[in-house]
């Protein structure tokens, strides 16, 4: 079955084409789809793409930064407005992957490749679809987009983003797991913690038990210890060639504790 690749001048036209053939796949930077094509993945019959320059735009206004869907990891790593996301973008792939991999593409990356998606989720980012709908990235990560993600709106974190990618390869390699955490403080206490674990299941997900252990408390040893103990609660990681499920459950709390201790 030959593959058909259809290019459209604008994201609106691409979205209309996707609507008429829902089984088609939308092309971002290619790091996911080309890999599948190179393996002759039979589920891919039609690819829709656009080089719409609007998808490469980055703008910052009113406490948030809007990243076009096709903004690359390399652009995020180097732009002044996304300095808070640079530590995440920098540890994704090597330079070649970062010059292709996109912000929106990472929302659809299979575990354990969702490092950037985890960070967006921890920051409470939302996705704007080509039809103008705006939905939390959490929904896109959990359920897909049913449309084309045109941009991602990321609130600039007042209290910084904590991020740790755990890999067994130096200087870097694929994630065993990664942790992204945003811990807003109010009068010295954590209020509205968002902690996201990537690689602990098919999609990045909130570590609700660890969040509950921190909320309403100052970020000190006892609260951190409690959060670390319950870090893997609610997660069902898989055995894979990178690590066993047991190992992931064991080390999730250790790395969360180190990350939080470093932020005190």
């Amino acid at each position, binding site marked *: 079955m030959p593959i058909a690749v259809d290019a459209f001048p604008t994201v609106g036209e691409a979205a209309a084409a996707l609507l008429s053939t829902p089984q088609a796949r939308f092309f971002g930077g290619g790091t996911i789809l080309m890999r599948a*094509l*190179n393996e002759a993945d039979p589920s891919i019959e039609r690819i829709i793409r656009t080089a719409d320059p609007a998808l490469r735009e980055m703008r910052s206004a009113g406490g948030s930064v809007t990243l076009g869907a096709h903004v690359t990891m390399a652009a995020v790593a180097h732009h002044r407005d996304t300095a808070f996301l640079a530590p995440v973008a920098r540890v994704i792939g*090597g*330079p070649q992957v970062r*010059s292709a991999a996109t912000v929106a593409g990472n929302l659809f990356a299979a575990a354990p490749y969702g490092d950037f998606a985890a960070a967006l989720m921890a920051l409470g980012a939302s996705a704007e679809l080509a039809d103008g709908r705006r939905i939390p990235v959490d929904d896109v990560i959990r359920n897909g987009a049913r449309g084309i993600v045109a941009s991602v709106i990321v609130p600039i974190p007042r209290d910084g983003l904590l991020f740790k990618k755990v890999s067994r390869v130096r200087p870097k390699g694929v994630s065993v797991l990664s942790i992204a955490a945003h811990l807003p403080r109010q009068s010295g206490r954590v209020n509205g913690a968002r902690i996201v674990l990537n690689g602990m299941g098919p999609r990045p997900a909130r570590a609700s038990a660890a969040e509950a252990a921190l909320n309403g408390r100052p970020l000190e040893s006892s609260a951190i210890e409690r959060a670390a103990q319950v870090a893997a609660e609610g997660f069902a990681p898989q055995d894979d060639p990178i690590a066993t499920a047991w190992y992931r459950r064991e080390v999730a709390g250790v790395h969360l504790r180190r990350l939080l201790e470093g932020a005190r």
Partner: protein
Amino acid sequence: MARKPIEITHNGEEKAIFVADGQNLLDVLRRTVGDLTPKYGCAQGTCGACTVLIDGTPHLSCLTLAETANGRAIETVAGLAGGELSPLQDAFMRNFSAQCGYCTGGMLMSAEALLRANPRPTREDVVEAISGNLCRCTGYEAIIDAVMDAAQSAPRRMG
């Protein structure tokens, strides 16, 4: 299968070629253009053997949809040497940086991109620049030595 015409600049030379839907740039470079210097390693974006520069930036040609290269400048190892080896290639030779040689083309292109952007890199900069290229023979040290050597032996720009 649909054939799409594209125009690329391949190592400074303009070429008009046809690509197929879904074909990757590595395949086009090797089969259509006849440039065998980018290597087919994993086709997964893991090994870096197919690294080429697109408009000066390192990309994995195996993960690049060929039609998206339309209008762009592609550089490969075939364009590095002009009659004699480039200083970077010469440094690779002097430092014994290739054993089987399969990764070397990709290593050279990643290092070339680094040295153009940062002519005086630290050792850490070099490690970072080649972090997307796997070598199963050398243990990397000889490759890092070569890139540092090339940077140090390049004429210093006064400024």
